[in-house]
């Protein structure tokens, strides 16, 4: 009995949240790594791009809801997702055409791109807050819990409950679908392979006749999709507050570098690594040990490795560890 309780405890407080958080980070990290691989710069505006995409989804969700259109058990926001994606693609291409293209043609150094992405970050940050305000917005509707803790306890008779929110399942499924499609595209289609080739060796790709304009357009499209989907899933699961989206960039950057910058599969794994580490290392295992150990050895303290306040420290620590042991990332990325 107690062994099962211990497992359910871990599942409820570590496994399920980490899978959800990992999916969110993975989507973000893949987007950042694609921009790095193809466009060759770290895009500090990515967090606010996610916020922008989510904002459009929210606005359109409200519109749908006002017209009485819902999605049954699923959140209405999923219906609004395509519109959000379109707007995000539009604004990404707009910024690329008016800003990034100029510096690409000048062959400016990466620092210039970072600085310019900072400018775009300020602008997007302002635009989102001006349009939708800075406050917490909850736009989740539809069926909230697939399994409530209380129900679980009733069904199984266990002491510990396992709660599963529908947003967690949606996040996982959407992430799996999105990533499968993306990796199929990158590995099995000619265009996808050409994108990888361009990211790998730009000069040789140009020599092979690969059209850089097409690659860059595709990259922004894919990145916009990832940003909007990732941002929306995050907002559905937690809530939408423009301010948090920039903060999420930090673990996303860590995941990108850990996975090997420029390597989408690495970014995927990196996201989960960071998520699991953050949650597992800040969890208080007192109850867990209580279930497993005989009463005489039961711990008195929280048994928490690091306090939750220091989440950043974990991302950073993992980043430093990886940079020391495997500077190219856990999976081979570009040598920096």
């Amino acid at each position, binding site marked *: 009995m107690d062994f099962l309780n211990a497992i359910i405890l871990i599942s409820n407080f570590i496994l399920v949240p980490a899978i959800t958080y990992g999916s969110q980070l993975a989507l973000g990290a893949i987007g950042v790594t694609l921009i790095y691989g193809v466009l060759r710069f770290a895009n500090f505006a990515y967090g606010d791009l996610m916020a922008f995409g989510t904002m459009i989804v929210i606005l359109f969700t409200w519109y749908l809801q006002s017209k009485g259109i819902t999605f049954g058990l699923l959140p209405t926001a999923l219906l609004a997702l395509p519109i959000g994606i379109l707007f995000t693609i539009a604004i990404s291409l707009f910024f690329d055409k008016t800003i990034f293209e100029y510096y690409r043609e000048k062959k400016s150094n990466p620092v210039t791109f970072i600085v310019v992405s900072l400018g775009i970050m300020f602008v997007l940050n302002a635009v989102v807050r001006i349009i939708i*305000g800075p406050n917490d917005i909850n736009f989740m509707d539809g069926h909230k819990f697939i399994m409530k803790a209380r129900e679980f306890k009733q069904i199984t008779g266990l002491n510990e409950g396992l709660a599963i929110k529908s947003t967690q399942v949606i996040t996982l499924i959407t992430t799996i679908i999105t990533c499968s499609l993306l990796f199929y595209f990158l590995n099995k289609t000619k265009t996808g392979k050409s994108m990888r080739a361009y990211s790998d060796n730009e000069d040789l790709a140009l020599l092979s006749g690969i059209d850089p304009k097409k690659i860059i357009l595709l990259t922004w499209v894919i990145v916009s999709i990832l940003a909007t989907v990732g941002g929306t899933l995050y907002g559905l699961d937690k809530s939408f507050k423009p301010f948090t989206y920039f903060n999420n960039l930090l673990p996303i950057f860590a995941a990108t570098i850990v996975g090997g910058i420029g390597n989408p599969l690495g970014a995927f794994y990196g996201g989960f690594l960071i998520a699991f580490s953050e949650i597992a290392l800040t969890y208080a295992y007192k109850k867990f040990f209580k279930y497993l150990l005989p009463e005489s050895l039961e711990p008195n303290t929280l048994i928490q490795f690091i306090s939750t306040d220091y989440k950043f420290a974990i991302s950073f620590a993992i980043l430093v560890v990886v940079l020391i042991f495997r500077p190219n990332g856990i999976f081979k990325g570009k040598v920096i």
Partner: protein
Amino acid sequence: MKNLDIKISFSVMALLIILVGIFQSWGVALSILNLCLISAVMSMGVNIQWGFAGLINFGVMGFLAIGGLATILVSVPPVIEAWSTGGMGILVSGLFIISVVLLLFFINKKLNDYKYKNYLIFLIIILSIPLLKLISGPSINKIESINAATSGFLGGMNLPIIFSWFFGALLSAGVAFVIGKVCLGLRSDYLAISTLLISGIIVSIVKHEEWLSRGVKNVIGLKRPAPYEVDLQSSDWFIRLVEFLNTSKLSKIFDITERQDLLSKLVITSSGIFVKLCFALIFFLVVCTLLYFSEKALKSPWGRMMRAIRDNEDAAKAMGKNVVKQHLFIFMLGSAIIGFAGAMLVTYDGLFTPSSYQPLRYTFLIWVMVLLGGTGNNYGAILGAFVVWFIWIQSAPFALYVINLFTSQLDESNAIKLHLVNSIPYFRYLMMGLGLLVVMRYKPKGLLPEKVMRN
């Protein structure tokens, strides 16, 4: 030519501030001036790292927080009871941390051949974290429980607050040393991300270690290197000064009680202005001193060498320059200056609010100042600070003016108008972003570019 540019730009800035004084209020003008001066110190610190050496430090926010922390540690009176119950534990923990760090440095340097060196380092770090918690935990609890509402922390050394500015610089330099040792070998984008993450960690520490900084409960009522307004308002010499300066205004009023009222009001506003003037003087002194030494350093052989390294690191290495050492030195120096500014800021505000440290306002805004003002140019950094801060503060009244202009036909309670008015705080971010983009496009070296030295 360059000197003319500098003179023109600074004259324009001075003019603008005077105009604010005339059309808005002298209090506001002096506030702007003071924040500009503080920001100038910050941007000069960043400029030393970026302009002189090409190092991207996105951890500015962390060093500002360290400077702010220093004001607490230096100027606040110690909480005796906290020290007696928990002081020893904290000291032991501090020694523990220092010995672990020294051990790690030692292992890193001496055991270079040991195959598992990195694993050992990793293991030590992993083990020392719970050990640290064990050692420090009880003491921290004791400290935080003493008068939790009004103190709940260790307090400081009860020294004059100006000392904290230098302490802040020292502390920042120390932290910069550790960060530099770990991160400076990384290329620009990794360095940027790493420093950003580390600054997040530093601010987390300051926010959550209540025994040290009171965390989110904030520390208020800090000491000052200038008089307090209330003290001025009750001192005779000041009242007589105000009376003297406003004789013409006062003599127009014949009723005694009315004249007293007016005098009181004048004394109140004047006290505010007087305090700000005092601060302005001190800050101006700091900026001038810093500028003097920075300019000397820039023009010195050392300065030229730094920029040679920045422009062509490989060539410099080939010539035998110890690039790593120079970079570390510059990183520490710039961070120390930033820490100094952080202490200045908290002193001026009179309170320490750890939760206010956000990357956008305390890191990236400073970067906009440096980039806009002119990379590698001290005058540029100062100008950038003035321009950016001026726009930052004045954007709110300006936005209000523009909104009113365009929506003059709309009624006060109109939803759109209300929404726009509510959004005013965010317009300044928009202006910053657009400003940065415009400058990077049309004047990528900033308003006052670095003068190319010809030898």
